[in-house]
């Protein structure tokens, strides 16, 4: 078949379509969003009837995928790394239930925090759950690993974690496809108690999971994603995990590394190969685009063996993503540097778009709060987080999705009244509703702004689960109707909006204010599409 140019994310998606998935479940999050978007746009996926609409959050996505696996079909669930924190309960326990139909969990990590609040390494989660992990180094491997991962999942009855990092997720290269597989038929687990994790059953299942570890390791040794390349210069042996292998090879233009190399793409580690490398080389260098997990485990806490170099001994930086230069320096190469960046080149941070509704909402909030001391606005994650920066400087926290309402509760209960929460519409349905219920049950004096731009803005304008439901949800949870106010965040309505917010700040209970105006990006996109449709009709 002909090569297709695909992003790492798209290669995973095409791999899943061709591996016969019946559904993909996800909540958007950089750098994972494009996987699900690819399936949503794929004609083939539509013809095959693959379900692909967005879930409310990563936990609902994870559990829905597990349900599809229970029913015997192949399912993939995708999220950014921090999404796995949200899905962790279902994720860890899915290792105990095991899978029926193939189940792959894709976690897209973001070393260097290009678009994230941390750079946690999802391989820890895979190890924690005691399941196999796949880590591609190329787009082709990403494609191939999905096929293999589903086969492995069904063969050994286990969910499989596939970890990708930003650089591969968002890099394009040629991919050759394989023949497409049929979807599985509906087929329930032969033991209908397999998924009932009562302690008496869970203990048995857990023992089974533990006993599968040897098979997992055998798979790592033989599946072909871990490769041992021997070479003469044994002063150094190199372990290169995932994409770091590319950076290693870049440093050898003839693609011949003089040292033995263990290329790692599957975990648990293939112990024989690691042992061979350790025994035959004087010292080891461990390359990982993430936390020093392998480095730490080979080193051991006492570090009494051979010299192990990597992120922990300073051979590589402790944080941030790797690149060819960083890897080159750890091998002792000097690089020719280009010219320096002139000192007048100014940083150009991202900012709210011109005409963004959040801007007008925060202008009004800032003025409404001008009579109070500073530091009262607990916010959340989304485009509106950019209002922390100049010129608005309107918010004081951003921790994790949903933490605005709940942190405002704690602060108000500590005596900071009024406390304000500012949360986006999608973040509200992702993780805000339960916090709102806490506030209502305690009648906590907080004012909540649900910034409704009617889309998931930050990740590129996906459909928001909150669309058309916010007031109903708030009332259903128990917010008093007279303390739910909808505003139009426009400059010409500024004074009116300030007054409305001020009134609610004084209320000794839960108020919800909904500044509602469509995201300027999705609005423009809709207008362009409309215009295009019109001109197409004419010609």
């Amino acid at each position, binding site marked *: 078949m002909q090569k297709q140019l695909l992003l790492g994310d798209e290669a995973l998606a095409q791999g899943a379509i061709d591996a016969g998935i019946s559904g993909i479940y996800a909540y958007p999050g950089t750098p994972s969003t494009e996987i699900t978007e690819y399936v949503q746009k794929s004609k083939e996926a539509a013809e095959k009837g693959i379900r692909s609409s967005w879930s409310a959050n990563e936990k609902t996505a994870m559990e829905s995928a597990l349900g599809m696996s229970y029913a015997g079909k192949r399912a993939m669930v995708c999220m950014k790394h921090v999404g796995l924190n949200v899905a962790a309960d279902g994720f860890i326990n899915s290792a105990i239930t095991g899978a029926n139909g193939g189940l792959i969990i894709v976690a897209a990590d973001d070393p260097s925090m290009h678009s994230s609040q941390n750079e946690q390494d999802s391989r820890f989660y895979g190890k924690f759950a005691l399941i196999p992990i796949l880590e591609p180094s190329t787009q082709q491997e990403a494609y191939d690993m999905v096929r293999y991962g589903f086969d492995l999942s069904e063969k050994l009855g286990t969910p499989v974690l596939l970890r990708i990092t930003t650089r591969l997720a968002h890099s394009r*290269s040629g991919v050759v496809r394989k023949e497409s597989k049929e979807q599985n038929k509906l087929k329930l687990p032969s033991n209908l108690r397999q998924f009932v994790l009562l302690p008496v059953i869970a203990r048995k299942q857990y023992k089974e999971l533990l006993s599968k570890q040897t098979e997992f390791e055998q798979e790592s040794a033989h599946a072909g994603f871990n490769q041992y390349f021997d070479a003469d210069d044994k002063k150094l042996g190199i372990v290169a995990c995932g994409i770091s292998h*590319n950076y290693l090879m870049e440093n050898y233009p003839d*693609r011949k590394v003089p040292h033995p190399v263990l290329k790692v793409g599957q975990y648990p580690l293939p112990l024989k190969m690691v042992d061979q490398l350790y025994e035959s080389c004087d010292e080891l260098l461990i390359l990982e685009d993430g936390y020093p997990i392998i480095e730490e485990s080979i080193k051991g806490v006492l570090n009494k063996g051979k010299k192990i170099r990597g992120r922990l001994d300073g051979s590589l930086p402790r944080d941030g993503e790797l690149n060819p*230069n960083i890897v080159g320096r750890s091998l002792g190469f000097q*690089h020719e540097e*280009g010219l320096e960046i002139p000192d007048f*080149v100014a940083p*150009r941070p991202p*900012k709210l*778009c011109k005409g963004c509704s959040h801007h007008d909402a925060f202008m009004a909030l800032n003025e409404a709060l001008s009579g109070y001391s500073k530091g009262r606005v607990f916010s959340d994650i989304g485009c509106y987080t950019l209002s922390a920066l100049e010129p608005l400087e309107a918010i004081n926290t951003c921790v994790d999705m949903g933490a605005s309402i709940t942190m405002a509760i704690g602060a108000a209960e500590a005596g900071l009244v009024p406390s304000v929460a500012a949360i986006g519409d999608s973040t509200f349905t992702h993780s805000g509703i339960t916090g709102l219920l806490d506030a209502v049950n305690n009648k906590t004096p907080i004012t909540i702004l649900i910034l409704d731009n009617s889309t998931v803005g930050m990740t590129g304008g996906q459909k928001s689960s909150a669309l058309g439901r916010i007031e109903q949800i708030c009332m259903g949870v128990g917010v008093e109707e007279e303390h739910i106010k909808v505003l139009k965040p426009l400059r010409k309505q500024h004074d009116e909006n300030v007054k409305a917010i001020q009134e609610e700040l004084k209320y000794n209970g839960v108020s919800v204010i909904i500044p509602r105006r469509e995201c300027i990006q999705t609005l423009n996109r809709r207008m362009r599409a409309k215009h295009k449709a019109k001109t197409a009709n004419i010609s």
Partner: protein
Amino acid sequence: MKKDIILAGVGGQGILSIAATIGTAAIANGMHLKQAEVHGMSQRGGDVQSHLRISDEKIASDLIPQGQADLIISVEPMESLRYLPMLKREGWLITNTAPHVNIPNYPDIEKVLEKIKSLPRHVALDADKMAKDLGSVRATNIVVLGAAAPFLELAIEKLENAIRSIFKTKGKEMIELNLNAFRAGLAVAEKAS
């Protein structure tokens, strides 16, 4: 043949269309390609860059090593300078001269242009104005691509075909506009190089 290219600009300026055009032409030539893009947060009016690597042989890294880029192609003058550490000694810098000012501390544009002109190998052109004169500023990126074309070692005809295929869904007018933009940029570069 091997070319390592840094594409630079501000979110929304269309550097990915430049990448897609060069990529399509390279693939039509049977070459290998790797292209690292920036998605997500920075696309909100921040600085964006893409590493585009094309080669007759297999490519290892998705990222270009520092000091190894053959070309910087930038749709914005200050942004072109942000990636100077990536450029080879004998590399070329091709840039638009019209600034995109969306920050309060944008430097004196004269200083920016002076620095660009001090580089021994550069092509600088007011692509905004050229695109506007041709009908739409939306073709600015392709004017810049045209100015970079002589340095790509890809047949001009292949690049024009790539433009036709990239803008196919946007209609005949857009194809014409972008072909004209490409040719206008190319004419400037041919005089300069």
